[in-house]
C-alpha cells in the first residue's frame, strides 16, 4: 500500500512542486465537472507539462496500482472527469500549446489542453479554422473533445470530432506511449484511433493530437426563423434537407429554452408565444450560398413560419449564435440546477418525441427545456430541478433516463456528443444487450487490464447488474427487515426493474 506522502513526493518529482495539489480542502473544486449530480474528491490533482511527464505519472501510478483519470477544462456533461474511485486526476490544462501548423496540408498538431476556440483564433488570421464547434468551444479542450467525440452545431455538414482527428500520441494505462492514426491518409490495419476517439478517458490519455483544419468558407448566411408550432419547425427541417441542401447547421430551441436565454446577457428578444425557433446557417461559395439562403427562407414560409430573417451583420449573427450556444448555462436563470440530456433520434420522429418529452415533464412535475441540433436529430432536453429539495436530484436523473429510453425506442441512441460517463452508464443496458457490453469490456481490458484508468465510466459491469437484481430480490422478499433502508436502495440502485 502506497502512502499519500509517497504519492505526493513522487508526483512532485515528476511535474514539479507547484503542479501537485493534494491538500484536502484544495481538492473540492475538482469534485465534479459540468455534471453536478455526483461528486467525489480525487486523492490529488497533478498537472504535467508534456507527453514525457504524463507517461511518467501514469507509469508510476500503474506500478503502484493507484487509479487515475484525465481532465481537460472540466466542462463535460456526463461526469467523465469525476473521481468516483478517489483517483489521481491528471489535469491537462497546462498542456495548451499549438505545436505546429501545416496550412498546405491542412493539419495542426496541438496539445490536449488547447481550448477548441483558441485553435481557431490562432489560425483565423490566415483564413483557416477548426470545424467541430461544441457549444462550450470557448472553454472546452481538444483533448476533451477527443475523449468525448464531441459534436457541435456545424457537425451536420462537417462531421463530429472523429472526422477531424487524424493522429495522436497516446499514453496507455501502463505508461507506454504509442502513436495512433495517420497524419495523412486513412488508418492502415485496425483503426485504433477510431477506437480511442470517444473512449472517454478509459483507454489512456492523448497527449499530442493531429487535427484537420479547414479553409474558412467564402460566404455564410444565417437565418432566424420563429414558428408558432413545433411541428412546423420540425417539418421545415425535414423539408430543407429533403431539397438536397446541406446546411452547415440547423439548430432548434423551444419556448422554455428561449425564455432562459433571453434572461441572460445574450438577449435576442424572442416573442414569448412562439413555440420554436430555428437557427439555420448555410455556407460555401458566395454564389451558391445566396441562392441556398433564399430557398431556406422560402421553405420556412411554406411551413407557416411567423417571421424569418437573414442576419444583416456579423454582430447580429454572433448574437444569434451566442444565444444558442449559451442556452445550457442560461438555464441557470430559470432553475437552480439542471441535467442536460443528449439523445439522438431519427429526424422524422422529432414532433412525436417532443410530445412524449412534454408528457414526461408533466408526469414528473419537472420542467424540461429543449435545445437541439435539429439537423441531425440530436436532442438536448434540459431537465430543471433543485438539488436542495430532497429526492429531486434522483428524480431528475430518472426523468433523464426515461427521455433516453424514448430515444432508443424510436430507433435512436442515448448520446450524440456528450458521452456516457457516469450519467448514462445504466442506460447503456437499454441500448445494448449483455453480449454487446461484454464485447466492449473485452476491448477495454485489452488496453486497461487493471481498470486503473477512469474505472466505472462508459461501460457498465454486467456482473454488477446481476448482483443488484439479486439484492433487490432479497430485499423484496424480506420487506420487514429492510424497510428502513428502502429509500437508500432506491437511490443507489435506480431503475433496473423500472
Amino acid at each position: 500500500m502506497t502512502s499519500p506522502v509517497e504519492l505526493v513526493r513522487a508526483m512532485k518529482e515528476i511535474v514539479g512542486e507547484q503542479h501537485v495539489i493534494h491538500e484536502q480542502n484544495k481538492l473540492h473544486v475538482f469534485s465534479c465537472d459540468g455534471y453536478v449530480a455526483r461528486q467525489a474528491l480525487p486523492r490529488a490533482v497533478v498537472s504535467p507539462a508534456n507527453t514525457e511527464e504524463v507517461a511518467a505519472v501514469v507509469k508510476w501510478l500503474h506500478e503502484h496500482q493507484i487509479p487515475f483519470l484525465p481532465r481537460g477544462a472540466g466542462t463535460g456533461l456526463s461526469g467523465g472527469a469525476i473521481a468516483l474511485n478517489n483517483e489521481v486526476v491528471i489535469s491537462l490544462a497546462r498542456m495548451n500549446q499549438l505545436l505546429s501548423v501545416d496550412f498546405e496540408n491542412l493539419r495542426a498538431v496541438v496539445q490536449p489542453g488547447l481550448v477548441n476556440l483558441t485553435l481557431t483564433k490562432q489560425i483565423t488570421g490566415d483564413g483557416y479554422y477548426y470545424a467541430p464547434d461544441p457549444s462550450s468551444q470557448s472553454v472546452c479542450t481538444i483533448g476533451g473533445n477527443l475523449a468525448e467525440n464531441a459534436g457541435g452545431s456545424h457537425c451536420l455538414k462537417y462531421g463530429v470530432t472523429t472526422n477531424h482527428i487524424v493522429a495522436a500520441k497516446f499514453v496507455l494505462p501502463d505508461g507506454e506511449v504509442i502513436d495512433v492514426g495517420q497524419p495523412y491518409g486513412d488508418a492502415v490495419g485496425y483503426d485504433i484511433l477510431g477506437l480511442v476517439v470517444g473512449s472517454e478517458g478509459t483507454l489512456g490519455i492523448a497527449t499530442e493530437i493531429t487535427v484537420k483544419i479547414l479553409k474558412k468558407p467564402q460566404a455564410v448566411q444565417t437565418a432566424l426563423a420563429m414558428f408558432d408550432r413545433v411541428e412546423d419547425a420540425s417539418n421545415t427541417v425535414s423539408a430543407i434537407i429533403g431539397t438536397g441542401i446541406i446546411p452547415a447547421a440547423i439548430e432548434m430551441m423551444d419556448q422554455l429554452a428561449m425564455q432562459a436565454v433571453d434572461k441572460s446577457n445574450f438577449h435576442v428578444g424572442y416573442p414569448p408565444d412562439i413555440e420554436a425557433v430555428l437557427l439555420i446557417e448555410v455556407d460555401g461559395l458566395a454564389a451558391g450560398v445566396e441562392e441556398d439562403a433564399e430557398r431556406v427562407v422560402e421553405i420556412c414560409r411554406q411551413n407557416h413560419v411567423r417571421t424569418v430573417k437573414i442576419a444583416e451583420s456579423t454582430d447580429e449573427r454572433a448574437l444569434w449564435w451566442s444565444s444558442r450556444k449559451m442556452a445550457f448555462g442560461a438555464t441557470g436563470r430559470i432553475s437552480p440546477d439542471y441535467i442536460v440530456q443528449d439523445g439522438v433520434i431519427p429526424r422524422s420522429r422529432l414532433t412525436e418525441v417532443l410530445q412524449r418529452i412534454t408528457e414526461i415533464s408533466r408526469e414528473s412535475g419537472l420542467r424540461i427545456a429543449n435545445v437541439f441540433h435539429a439537423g441531425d436529430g440530436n436532442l438536448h432536453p434540459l431537465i430543471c430541478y433543485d438539488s436542495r429539495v430532497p429526492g429531486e436530484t434522483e428524480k431528475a436523473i430518472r426523468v433523464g433516463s426515461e427521455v433516453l429510453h424514448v430515444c432508443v425506442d424510436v430507433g435512436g441512441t442515448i448520446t450524440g456528443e456528450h458521452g456516457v460517463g457516469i450519467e448514462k452508464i445504466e442506460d447503456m443496458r437499454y441500448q445494448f444487450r449483455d453480449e454487446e457490453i461484454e464485447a466492449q469490456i473485452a476491448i477495454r481490458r485489452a488496453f486497461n487490464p487493471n481498470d486503473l484508468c477512469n474505472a466505472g465510466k462508459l461501460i457498465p459491469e454486467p456482473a454488477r447488474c446481476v448482483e443488484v437484481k439479486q439484492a433487490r430480490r432479497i430485499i423484496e422478499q424480506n420487506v420487514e427487515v429492510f424497510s428502513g433502508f428502502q429509500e437508500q436502495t432506491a437511490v443507489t440502485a435506480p431503475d433496473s426493474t423500472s
Partner: protein
Amino acid sequence: MAKAEPELVQMSRHVSAFRWPDAPEEEKFSVCVHCGFCLDVCPTYQELKDENHSPRGRVLLIKEAAEGKLPLDESVIDPVFTCLDCRACETVCPSGVQVGSLIETARGQAHAAYPPVGRAGTVERIFLRGVFPHRSRLRAIGKFIRFYQRSGLRTVVRKTGALSVLPHAAREMEAVIPEIAADMAVDALPERIPARDAKKGTAVLFTGCVMDVFFAHVNEATARVAVRNGLEVLVPREQVCCGALQIHAGDREQARIMAKTNIDVFLATGADYLIINAAGCGAALKEYPDLFRDDPTYGQRARDFSARVRDISELLVEVGFEAPKGHINKTVTYHDACHLCHAQHIRSQPRQLLRAIPDLKLVELPDSERCCGSAGIYNLTHPDMASALLERKMDDIPETADAVVMGNPGCMMQIRLGVHKRQRDLDVLHTVELLDEAYQKEAAEQ
C-alpha cells in the same frame, strides 16, 4: 446520549463559515450551474491553470464555506484574494452569477475573521483607513510628492538608493508617478461651473482620490468637456474617496462610512447626475446599494444615488455631445478597463467619443477586455500575477500606436509602468484628455 454525538458533529459541519453580517448570499452563489464557461476568460486561471483560481472554483469555495463544508481558511481566502475582481467572468456567464459581489462579501468575511496583519495590515492602516478617507491627508501626500518631484529630493533619493526600503512593487511605481499638479481638482475647480450653451442638466463631478492626486488634470478636463456639452458642473468640497479600494480589501465597514458621506453630499445638491471618470470608482458608486443590504434607510438612499451615477463617456453619449472640430493627428488604441466594460457594460461610448475626433485613428487592441493587472492595489498585494498580466498587455499594444487610451487611473498607472519598463515611446491617456484636447484645438483654430 449515544445518538446525540453524531448529530452534533453533523450540525457543526453545517454551520456556515461566514459568521458575520453581510455574508455572501445564497441566492447569488446558487445561481452558478458549474458549466465552466468562465474558466478561459479568467486571467488568474489563464496564468495558473488551477480551478481553485477560477471563477467557478471560487464560487464553489464560497458556497461550500457558506454551507459549512469548508472552513474559512487559506483554501478559501487565498483564491478569494487572488481574484482580480475584474469581472470578465460576469460578461460571459450565461447564468448571471454576480461573482464580483460574492468575492467582495467573502472578503468582508475574511476581513472580519482575520483583521489584516503584516504588509496588508500596514497598507490598510496607513492608506485605506489612514489616508484615502481624509482629503486633507490626501492633499498633504500630493503636496509632498510634488515637493519630492520638484525639489531635487527625488534625484538625491534615487542616487543614494534610499528607495530600496520600499517593496519592489512600490519602488517600480515610484518611477512612473506622473508630475503632480499644484492643487487637486477638488480644490482648484470652482464649486459651480455654469453650462456652456443650452443646459442639459446638472452634474456633480466626483473627483476621487488617486485620480485627483495623480491625475488632477484629467478631472479638470472632465469638467471642461461636460460644461462644453451643456452640463452645469458642481464640485462639492465635502465629497470623499468612493471606498472601492476598501471594498476590494474586504473593509466594508470603512467603505460604508465613506459611502454614507458621499450619498449625503450628493443627494443634498439635488443634481441630475454624478459624473465619474474612474472605472473602478464608477462601478463601486453604482454598487453602493450592495453595501446597505441590511440598512433600509441607506439602502433606499444608495439606490437613489446609484441610479444617477454615470461614467463621463456614458453621460456624454446619453445627453448628446458635440463632435469636436479640432484635429488630432495620432494613432491610438483603446484598453477596456475591467470596471468599465465588465462591471458597467460600457464599451461603445468611449470609442464613440474617440471616433468623433477628426484625424484621430483608432486601432484595435487585441483582447482589449483582459485585465492589465492593476486591479486597485492588486499590483502591490500580488506583484507576480500583476506583472505577468502587464507583460501580456504590453505585448498586445500595436506597434503603430502613439498612445494607449483608457478610462481608469489604476490602469493608467499600471500601463505607465509597462511603458517605462519597456522604454516604449507611447503616451498613456484618459479618453477625456483627448476629447478635451480636440475641443481646445478647435477654440485655438477658430
